[in-house]
């Protein structure tokens, strides 16, 4: 009862407040350095130079070009936003709005859409076990890795010209800052400040371009734990788990919105993925 009363008081009080400014707009402070982080970074170059993710790019390319599925078709006609069959440079210009589905779609979502419409795969079956295990790499994971690799060295440039694309960004930002659940966590609880760590793991401040790119190009990435390939869809899924939230549906609007927010924040940065992660 006291809680409800206090809340009403709060409501009246807040009513008089101006709308707070969007977070992440202030000047960046110097990023705190520590010995552990520096040591990790010395060996990052070694790990990145020979990244087992390349094995999955090769596999994904083969899957892309091979006629498969009930319709025995390849993905040559798949439109990732730059026209049917254009893979080069498509990844850095996603997520984007697709008129044929009436939805903003991220890379993996679009690839699965192509697998369903062009090759005749069953969407529900693909969604059943979408993430890699030690013994199994789902096709969309390898395909997304291949598609991502075809944008290596290009600048992140997700379009924001259409209202649907701007709405996805706005929605993603809201979800990013939405605190709820048993631990009162939002995405920003871990990824809204500069120079923070969980244990020894550096947390990129995803509201800033130069750090958002670290998160965005890390996945698809080869995860050293387990030695498996994971995509951004998996990364967000496991973030929601750690956030003590219920599980997001694979390829859902919430995830596309978050990925749009992330991609737009990383805009202009050079994509160097697929990554290799702890």
């Amino acid at each position, binding site marked *: 009862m006291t809680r409800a009363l206090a809340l009403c008081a709060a409501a009246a009080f807040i009513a008089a407040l101006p709308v707070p400014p969007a977070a992440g707009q202030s000047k960046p402070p110097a990023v705190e350095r520590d010995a552990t982080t520096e040591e990790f970074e010395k060996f990052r170059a070694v790990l990145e*130079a*020979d*990244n*087992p993710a*390349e*094995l999955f790019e*090769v*596999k994904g390319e083969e899957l892309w070009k091979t006629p498969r599925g009930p319709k025995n078709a390849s993905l040559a006609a798949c439109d990732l936003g730059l026209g049917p069959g254009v893979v080069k440079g498509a990844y850095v210009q996603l997520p984007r709005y697709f008129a044929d589905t009436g939805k903003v779609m991220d890379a993996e979502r679009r690839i699965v859409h192509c697998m369903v419409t062009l090759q005749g795969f069953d969407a529900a079956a693909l969604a059943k076990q979408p993430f890699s*295990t*030690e*013994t199994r790499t789902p096709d969309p994971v390898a395909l997304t890795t291949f598609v991502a690799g075809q944008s290596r060295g290009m600048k992140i440039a997700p379009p924001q010209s259409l209202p649907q694309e701007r709405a996805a960004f706005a929605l993603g930002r809201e979800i990013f800052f939405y605190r709820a659940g048993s631990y009162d966590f939002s995405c920003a609880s871990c990824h809204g400040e500069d120079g923070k760590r969980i244990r020894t793991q550096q947390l990129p401040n995803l509201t800033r371009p130069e750090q958002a790119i670290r998160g965005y190009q890390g996945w698809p990435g*080869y995860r*050293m734990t*387990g*030695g498996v390939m994971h995509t951004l869809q998996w990364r967000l899924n496991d973030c929601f788990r750690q956030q003590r939230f219920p599980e997001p549906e694979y390829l859902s609007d919430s995830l596309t919105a978050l990925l749009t927010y992330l991609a737009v924040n990383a805009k202009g940065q050079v994509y160097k993925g697929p990554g290799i992660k702890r």
Partner: protein
Amino acid sequence: MAEPMKIRAKLEGDVLDVRVLMAHPMETGQRKDGAGNLVPLHFIQTITAQLNGKPVFQADTSQAISRNPVFGFRLKGAKAGDKLSITWTDNKGDKRTDEIVVGAA
């Protein structure tokens, strides 16, 4: 069926810097699967590299090598056009050989 390796070789003078990525689970025999059962040992035991058919580098390995192994080594006296082949064999008798032709420096 073993998946292809990815072999990269860069010539600097007559030294060939070789990097190879291999797709292999490198199971330690200690890991449990989803059902709680131990996954049996499964790992690469030997790797050999041949330059134009001559064995030049050889490795004996244990399950302590990371999953999807990455190795680097350097060959001397190599030149563009040389054939480099690498073969691995695992404890189950599976093997895989891949070959590349060394490009010009």
